[in-house]
């Protein structure tokens, strides 16, 4: 694929004093893709995004965004990128409309010119356009921030944990909006700590401790999960997880809602577990084979 049709990162390293925030991060994202970085807090997602949007310089490695070098062509990168930081960072004492006008003007455009891009999103907060941004609810703040990031018609949208701290309904709406923006041909890079949002991306990269563990479509990541997965419950859940962790054939065991998800060493079978747990006087035992979701894959990768 031509270099001006994709974003390519090669061997990105970044350290803060003793802490290695990013280690050898490489990926490529074709134009128009909705790409997710999934990982726990402190995995290095924000650092990576800040490097992507030219707010931070990497120690080593190169990033090429649609043919632009992130360091050499940082001005052009800024022009074609919309960035929404994890923390709400618009002017709280300016009104909704003033914020939007401000960001439109400093990008040398007007609200009118690109209104079609933000219409679906902005129309929801337009009734409150005279209200100071600081007085909006969490979901409305996100919509305003997204509008401001979109107002200069960016080719690339970088969203750092846009749904953290937002209620379930607003989260769903937000992802629908991202879907619509993708249809307009905008490349979207998004990070999230929520595993369920991963399946809404075209492709995801699982990131932990500054390293990318796996990059693939959500479906492929799930199907690459090799070992059979069991969901177990009993009447004494706390004792159950402790016992399972002492079981020699256990590969991994972690709580997942009302169940414990369990994988075993390749030689072991489900019957072995049942036998082991019966000896430990567990009652009301329930064990099912289930198909893994992306969170299981992530947990599995983390254990490795």
């Amino acid at each position, binding site marked *: 694929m031509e270099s001006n049709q994709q974003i390519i990162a090669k061997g990105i390293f970044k350290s803060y004093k003793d802490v290695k925030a990013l280690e050898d991060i490489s990926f490529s994202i074709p134009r128009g893709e909705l790409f997710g970085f999934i990982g726990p807090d402190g995995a290095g997602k924000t650092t990576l995004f*800040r490097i992507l949007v030219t707010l931070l310089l990497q120690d080593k490695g190169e990033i090429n965004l649609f043919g632009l070098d992130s360091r050499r062509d940082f001005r052009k990168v*800024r022009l074609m*990128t919309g960035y929404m930081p994890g923390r709400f960072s618009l002017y709280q004492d*300016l009104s909704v409309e003033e914020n939007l006008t401000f*960001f439109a003007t400093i990008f040398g455009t007007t609200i009118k010119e690109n209104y079609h891009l933000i219409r679906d999103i902005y129309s929801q907060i337009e009734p409150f356009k005279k209200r100071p941004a600081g007085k909006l609810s969490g979901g409305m703040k996100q919509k305003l921030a997204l509008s401001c990031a979109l107002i200069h018609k960016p080719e690339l949208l970088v969203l750092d944990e846009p749904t953290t701290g937002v209620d379930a309904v607003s989260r769903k709406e937000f992802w629908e909006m991202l879907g619509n923006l993708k249809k307009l041909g905008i490349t979207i890079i998004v990070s999230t700590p929520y595993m369920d949002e991963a399946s809404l991306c075209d492709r995801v990269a699982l990131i932990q401790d500054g390293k990318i563990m796996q990059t693939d479509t959500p479906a492929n990541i799930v199907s690459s999960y090799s070992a059979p997965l069991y969901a177990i419950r009993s009447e004494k859940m706390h004792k159950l997880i402790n016992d399972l962790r002492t079981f020699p054939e256990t590969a991994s065991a972690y709580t997942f809602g009302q169940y414990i998800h369990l994988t075993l060493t390749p030689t072991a079978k489900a019957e072995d577990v049942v036998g082991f747990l019966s000896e430990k006087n567990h009652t009301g035992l329930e064990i099912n084979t289930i198909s893994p979701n992306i969170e299981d894959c992530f947990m599995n990768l983390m254990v490795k």
Partner: protein
Amino acid sequence: MRTIGFFIQKEFLQIFRNRSMLPMIFMVPIIQLLVLTYAVTYEMKGIRIHISDADFSSTSGQLTGKFTGSPFFVVTSTGTTHEEAEQALHLGKADMALNIPEGFERGIMRSESPQVELLYNAVNANVAGLSSAYTSSLIADFQGNMIADLMGGMQGSIIPVADITYSYWYNQEMDYKLFMAPGILVMLVTSIGLFLTGMNIVREKEMGTIEQINVTPVKKYQFIVGKLSPFLIIGLGELAFGMLIARLMFGVPFMGSIWLIFLFAALYMLVLLGMGLIISTLTNTQQQAMLLSWFFLVIFIMMSGLFTPVESMPDWAQWIDRFNPLTYFIRVIRLVMLKGSGWDEVKDQFYIIGAYGVVMISVAVMRYRKVG
């Protein structure tokens, strides 16, 4: 240009939307000028004095009469002995004591230069110093009279008494208000420049909005000009407002060119804005910025010659004071307003503050980074 203009517009919108800002901008100069010009004065009135007179002569009576007749002194107690004088100081009944020993008049008649004793309570060195200065002038006055009387008593001789007349130029009545008001105007402009600039930029850091600005194509110079010009305008506006009050309320004269003062003020603001910007690059929260500005402000004000003359400071302090922008401004504003100095007399200060401004802004611009 359009971007800068819009930036400035946004800053003003935010400044004036801040409910505590407008009252601050207008009330602070009025209150500071009113309170400080009246309160901060070196004129002492009603110094409490104890007089012990053991001589009971007409000459000693003339000397004590000098004190009782002076508006600067109030005789709180009298006596005859040194012990009584000491007692009055110990008990805090008097700020100073005069003790005239027995044989005072006789001594004068015999041209023996007799002695009087003066005791001061120097807990407050300022009060003691001023009391001493006033007393000396009264006693000098008294001696002048004595000489004239004695000489007059001799027949046929001419009395060669030097007649000293005083004339205080540029502030004829030695009115402290005229002297203080310009200095307080400088203080006002300084606090606006230093505090508001530093805090304003740090606020963008604190709120995270600087991130959002940094990813835009706004250039460094646009951001800095957009951030600093509102405070330049507010600072100069504050100066104009303060001058108006000083003129209307205290009748402070404007002998020289107002434009010269404003031109100097503009250069001076560049120094402060540069400092404010540097402070904002050194700090991450408004609190830190506030403390750091306060640290500099106190030193600048105390060493500026506003309250105590720069000339009386030790050499090393005077040397440090060369880096104090307030000193220059206070000197210039007093010279231009009270004396009517023109360009020639203040041009050195102009060059210094101009160079200072260029250095400060350059350092500040170099330190300010869009990328981490």
